[in-house]
């Protein structure tokens, strides 16, 4: 039996089927669910900055062996750790039980498009705020708005070194002899907008980097500091931005222009198709998605409609495999775990069920290899050790839920119309309930999407 469109909506465009039997429906329902803007949520940025400040101070005091500093450091560390788990819990709860699985998958897609590797205490506490405030509210909105929000978010400014980039001709630059850091400028062009194959030159990168100077942050959030901004106009891809005095408005103009370039449209369209559908794009699909994006001035809902209109979007052939995060979320959903269940999990349980397995499967949480995000190649996930970790997770989790499940029903509710005779036979032949459930989750049928 081939997969029905109803099941594909949840398997390819969501986080998998669940025993509730609720489906997110087809294109219209999926797009309608995006319409209400998702408000920013979670711990406000200033509170995060305060947590970090407390930690940095405590660490400094401890190094200088100030009295009582060791205890203060411990408690500041514990507070950061608490926040880390608050963020993880919120992320997982939305993925497992959010009202619109398509929205959650898109949020993950854009979070990966604007990947931040959370390799420092600062980024661990800032990066979730980037997703909550700069990405989530714009997932069903306009890409230029998302780009602007991300490019000015403290997590991105820190990660790609923008906050330490100083215009050589600025007040501060002249006084201290410090200079430019091109990192963010280059990655915006190469990864976030035009794409590496587009026609731009080192000179564009350089001038764009000069244009971006002044963008930094403090404990309240984004701040434009004219004292470090390079004065004078800059030319990026043939367009002049700014005048004698450095102004943030010029940066906004440049970002919006970049967002709406045809190269950006094709780059984003290609990435969306590759992420959700995979394989060589069908003829004309990429053009149609890119055209929809351009014609609507970067309206993402319009873009998704063109994406979902492709034949391959609903092809029963499953070309992609679930990423480890998708695998774990879909596995939990298969056992009927709800957002509410997730919100009750303590750090130890989250570590055992999510963090350690994610790392073992090759996708340590919030730690993509670089600003280009996680691999889209199924072969990279289904390595020997990656697959072994999936099998182990399947066995472990199946073991914990076995008493509540009937294998035949689990197979049905988890794979839906994607049940193949092979996986059905293997499930029947398993010698224990736990084995049967584990086989379903470890099967290619479940791992593909």
């Amino acid at each position, binding site marked *: 039996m081939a997969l029905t469109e109803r099941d594909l909506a949840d398997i390819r465009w969501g986080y998998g089927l669940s025993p509730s039997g609720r489906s997110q429906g087809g294109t219209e329902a999926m797009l309608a669910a995006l319409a209400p803007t998702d408000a920013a949520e979670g711990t406000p940025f200033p509170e995060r900055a305060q947590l970090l400040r407390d930690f940095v101070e405590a660490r400094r005091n401890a190094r200088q062996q100030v009295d009582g500093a060791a205890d203060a450091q411990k408690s500041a560390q514990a507070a950061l750790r608490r926040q880390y788990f608050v963020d993880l819990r919120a992320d997982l709860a939305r993925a497992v039980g959010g009202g619109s699985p398509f929205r959650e998958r898109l949020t993950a897609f854009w979070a990966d498009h604007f990947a931040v590797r959370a390799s420092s205490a600062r980024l661990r506490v800032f990066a979730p705020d980037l997703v909550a405030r700069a990405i989530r509210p714009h997932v069903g909105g306009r890409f230029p708005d998302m780009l602007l929000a991300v490019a000015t978010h403290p997590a991105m400014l820190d990660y790609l070194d923008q906050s330490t980039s100083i215009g050589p001709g600025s007040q501060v630059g002249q006084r201290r002899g410090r200079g430019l850091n091109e990192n963010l400028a280059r990655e915006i062009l190469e990864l976030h907008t035009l794409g590496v194959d587009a026609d731009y030159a080192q000179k564009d990168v350089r001038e764009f980097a000069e244009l971006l100077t002044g963008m930094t942050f403090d404990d309240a959030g984004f701040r434009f500091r004219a004292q470090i901004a390079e004065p004078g106009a800059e030319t990026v891809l043939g367009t002049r931005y700014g005048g004698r005095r450095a102004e943030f408005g010029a940066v906004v103009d440049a970002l919006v222009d970049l967002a709406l370039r045809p190269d950006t449209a094709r780059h984003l369209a290609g990435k969306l198709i590759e992420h959700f559908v995979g394989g060589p794009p069908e003829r004309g699909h990429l053009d149609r998605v890119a055209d929809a994006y351009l014609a609507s001035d970067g309206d993402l809902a319009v873009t998704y409609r063109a994406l979902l209109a492709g034949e391959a979007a609903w092809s029963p052939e499953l070309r992609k*495999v679930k990423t480890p995060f998708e695998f774990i979320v879909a596995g939990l959903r298969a*056992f009927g*775990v709800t957002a509410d*269940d997730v919100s*009750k*999990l*303590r750090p*130890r*349980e989250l570590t*055992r*069920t999510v963090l350690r397995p994610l790392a*073992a499967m090759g996708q340590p949480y919030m730690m993509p290899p670089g600003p280009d995000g996680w691999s889209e190649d*199924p*072969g990279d996930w*289904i*390595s*020997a*050790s*990656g*697959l*072994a*970790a999936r*099998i*182990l997770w399947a*066995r*472990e989790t199946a*073991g*914990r*839920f*076995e*008493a*509540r499940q*009937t*294998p035949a029903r689990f197979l049905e509710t988890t794979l839906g119309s994607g049940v193949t005779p*092979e*996986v059905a036979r*293997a499930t029947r*032949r*398993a*010698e*224990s*309930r*736990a*084995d*049967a459930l*584990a*086989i379903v989750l*470890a*099967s*290619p*049928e479940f*791992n*593909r999407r």
Partner: protein
Amino acid sequence: MPDLSRRRLLTGSVAIGCSAAASPLLTPVTLASAPGENRLVVIVLRGAMDGLDVVQPLGDAALTGLRPGFDIGEAGGAQDLDGYFALHGEAADLMPLWRAGELSFAHAVSTPYRDKRSHFDGQDLLENGGGDATGTLTEGRDGWLNRMLTLVPGTRSDTAIAVGRSQPLILSGSAPAGSWSPETDLDLSAQAELLLADLYASDPLFASAAETAIALSAGRDVPGGMSPAKAGQAVPLASFAAERLNEEARIAAFSIGGWDSHRRQKTVIRRPLRELTAALLTLKSELGRNWERTTVLAMTEFGRTARENGVAGTDHGTGGAMVMAGGALRGRRVHGDWPGLGEGDLYEDRDLRPTGDIRRYAAWTVRGLFGLERSEIERVVFPGVDLGANPKILS
């Protein structure tokens, strides 16, 4: 090795849960104390242990003809028990227990479950302790050990503990019981590995990684120096059970899988048999003086076909064997009423004919250990079972 794993157990995620309503992902902790000094361990042997291979009826002339390819009798390494039955060679380390009167068996036993021979239904019925031939459970769909707890005076939330990844049906129900999952736990069974390997073989993306992945997930060394993801065995389970039984717990349950020997039984049965042997020896050594007051019942959902099949294995059957161990036993006995393996003796001309109800042995055990009334056992613990005459399992 025992020291290492023990240390890991003690410092690992030791947690005793008590609520059947909580999410299986949660690991709540509760502590309390317990009634009496007698101890019961139930090991569920999942996958249908072949009783005819583990406790071989060498005295039955039909045996070798039915199973020409198996390790049978002295030539196959089996150890003589009583002149009629012999113990499979892989479990030879249990012979000192046998000689000390700390090991017994019941043969040709079964639950009331008949004919469909589904592992899941069979195990449910075994753990539920009630039910009928079709596999329908008692109304409460709870476990017999749990129902028994409701009858034992002074039972507290840590009197009984399930050791393993989940609360098995046998301990599920209204009475509070603990559960504990070791970091290192049992693997997929050999059978499940084969099934998965078949599934992966048909998908090119998975096929290339499958062999190494399955080996890694089972904790086996693989070429190329990748370290095993884990080392799985029943010893940590038995060791943890012993530790709890030396403290407040009086009842423990865990599972040993891997018995579903459809192919190459000679090889396949060795691993679970080694696991069972190691688990029993671990319980004895780590329970110390408490072993004297302990009874272990190792029970499986059903037996396997009397005849070897076309791929050197056996298929799902009916009558099987139960393993009993412990210092509280009146051991060195093979209980039961032997039905024979000859022409016309087999159930449906394929399986060992069950002549005894496995639940009767469990019933007399709990009666002896916890002093429960016969009528209560017949009404609450094993509804529908007639206890009959005392088989005198315990000393």
